[in-house]
């Protein structure tokens, strides 16, 4: 629910980054005396003023706990909260809002999926498949449940270009496989996995499929019905919304199989000391007072993305990616890590004889924010036999001029180092 005083953006017919930049107040600042260039969007995106305003509007005008209150503020807060659920449902094309569970983020969603789904269907000797390019958040929860239930975790290998070796994945599929959990878009490499096909083949052996959509949600047009995934987790803060909110989508039949994950208020129908009966979907999985303000902010972020049209976003980002790869290729000794054919706008690289940490520190001193290190994908870094990479992850407000500056600064760093 947005009050009339809040600006909304509609009718941006042609994608124009300078108009987009005006929506993000934080970008208009200097860091270390240089204009901020924010290239750490895969870690978290910046927030447009509509999102910031929606959150402050809630606290200023209708802060109340949701669902149980009968007073007007509680009614208004509940309506705004549930409106975000409807927006999320439409955004990913789920069949019903019952299939849209609010979580605290992708990691929380995958933990819910792993813990609850494994209780329902994973037994001793069963197998779970993940890929070699997973974020720790899609590795550790499965290691934990496999250990708990004496199941076996199998890793689908990837190629030098950072793409899943599909035949090897197919070889791993058997009747023993109960769950396949795979990343839609790699956070370290930008690789877009062929998830529709992965899901289809997993379903042939009767496995359930969980998708880690953290990096996909802001860059791709997500359609869970078309993908036919069983569970799909993503985060608000990587798609211009606030931190501390995410979605776990689940097919109703799958969510019905899964026992509650956390106990507490809201998730119950009736509580006695002998026996508690659980609430219906989606509330069965939403124990305790949720992060109401940020869920409302998330709804506003979805509205924002829809107002600028995800297809034009995609096109713009792909153009930036191609430009970035071509500009950075000019830097001596630079090697890209992750050269998949299908990629989102993530450029990961290393430079001969210069540690990623040094590059990151020097770029920061010049106002450029990138990520350096293993990006929470240590097994993937081990595969490439590197300690880490420098990652520039681009978003809708980034420009070709900013990429030029990045390339210039990298050239200067290489020059200093070779002195």
């Amino acid at each position, binding site marked *: 629910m947005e009050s009339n005083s809040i600006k909304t953006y509609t009718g941006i017919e042609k994608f124009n980054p300078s108009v987009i930049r005006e929506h993000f107040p934080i970008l208009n600042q200097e860091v*270390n*005396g*240089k204009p901020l260039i924010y290239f750490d969007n895969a870690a978290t995106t910046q927030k447009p003023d509509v999102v910031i305003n929606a959150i402050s509007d809630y606290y200023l005008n209708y802060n109340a706990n949701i669902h149980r209150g009968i007073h007007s503020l509680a009614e208004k807060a509940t309506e705004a909260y549930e409106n975000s659920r409807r927006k999320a449902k439409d955004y990913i094309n789920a069949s019903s809002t019952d299939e849209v569970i609010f979580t605290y983020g992708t990691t929380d969603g995958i933990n819910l999926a792993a813990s609850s789904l494994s209780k329902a269907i994973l037994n001793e000797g069963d197998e779970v498949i993940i890929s070699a390019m997973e974020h720790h958040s899609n590795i550790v929860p499965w290691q934990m449940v496999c250990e708990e239930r004496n199941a076996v975790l199998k890793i689908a290998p990837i190629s030098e270009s950072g793409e899943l070796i599909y035949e090897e994945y197919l070889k791993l599929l058997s009747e023993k496989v109960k769950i396949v959990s795979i990343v839609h878009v790699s956070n370290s490499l930008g690789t877009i996995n062929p998830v529709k096909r992965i899901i289809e083949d997993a379903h042939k052996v009767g496995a359930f499929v969980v998708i880690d959509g953290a990096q996909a949600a802001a860059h791709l047009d997500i359609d869970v019905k078309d993908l036919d995934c069983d569970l799909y987790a993503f985060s608000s803060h990587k798609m211009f919304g606030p931190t501390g909110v995410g979605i776990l989508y689940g097919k109703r039949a799958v969510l019905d199989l899964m026992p509650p994950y956390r106990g507490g208020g809201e998730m119950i129908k009736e509580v006695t000391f002998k026996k508690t009966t659980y609430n219906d979907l989606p509330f069965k999985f939403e124990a305790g007072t949720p992060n109401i303000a940020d869920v409302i902010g998330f709804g506003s972020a979805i509205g924002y993305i829809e107002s600028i049209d995800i297809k034009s976003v995609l096109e713009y980002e792909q153009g930036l990616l191609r430009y970035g790869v071509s500009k950075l290729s000019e830097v001596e000794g630079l090697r890209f890590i992750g050269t998949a054919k299908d990629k989102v706008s993530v450029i990961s690289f290393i430079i001969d004889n*210069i*540690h*990623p*940490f*040094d590059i990151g*520190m*020097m770029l920061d*001193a*010049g106002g450029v924010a990138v990520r*350096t*290190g293993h990006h929470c994908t240590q097994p993937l870094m081990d595969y490439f036999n590197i*300690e*880490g990479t420098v990652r520039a992850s681009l978003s809708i407000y980034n420009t070709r001029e900013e990429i030029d500056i990045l390339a210039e600064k990298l050239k200067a760093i290489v020059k*200093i*180092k070779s*002195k």
Partner: protein
Amino acid sequence: MSDHSINEIQDEIIDEFAILGDDKESTVFYIMELGSNLEPLDDKYKVDSNLIKGCQSKVWLDAELVNDRLVLNADSNTDITKGLISLLIRVLSGQRLDDIINADLYFIEKIGMHNVIGSQRSNGLASMIKQIRLYAIAYKTKIQSQS
């Protein structure tokens, strides 16, 4: 052995950094250059017992007693960290144990290092200093127990 006192060297460093002014980019570039110029540590010293491990950078620090002075040798996998180490070595290596133990390392604050390297790296720098002091204390205790 160092002919200059700890404070004399600290004052030199403060003067050098003053020339760089407030520009963080040139300061970081300068630290990295210092790092590139630091003599690499012989591999025999790059052992786990000499390792101080941070999130993204590793530091190997070795200290030996030569006459009554502590001689420091160190290395890192990142040039910026090596640059920081080289400053510490310049100030503390070759100094008397008591001088190291009692040193007031004011140059770090004076050159605005915290602002340049951030809080995480500042913690790393602090643990390097702590480790150097511990070496000095350990050697002092050893000498006292022998005499």
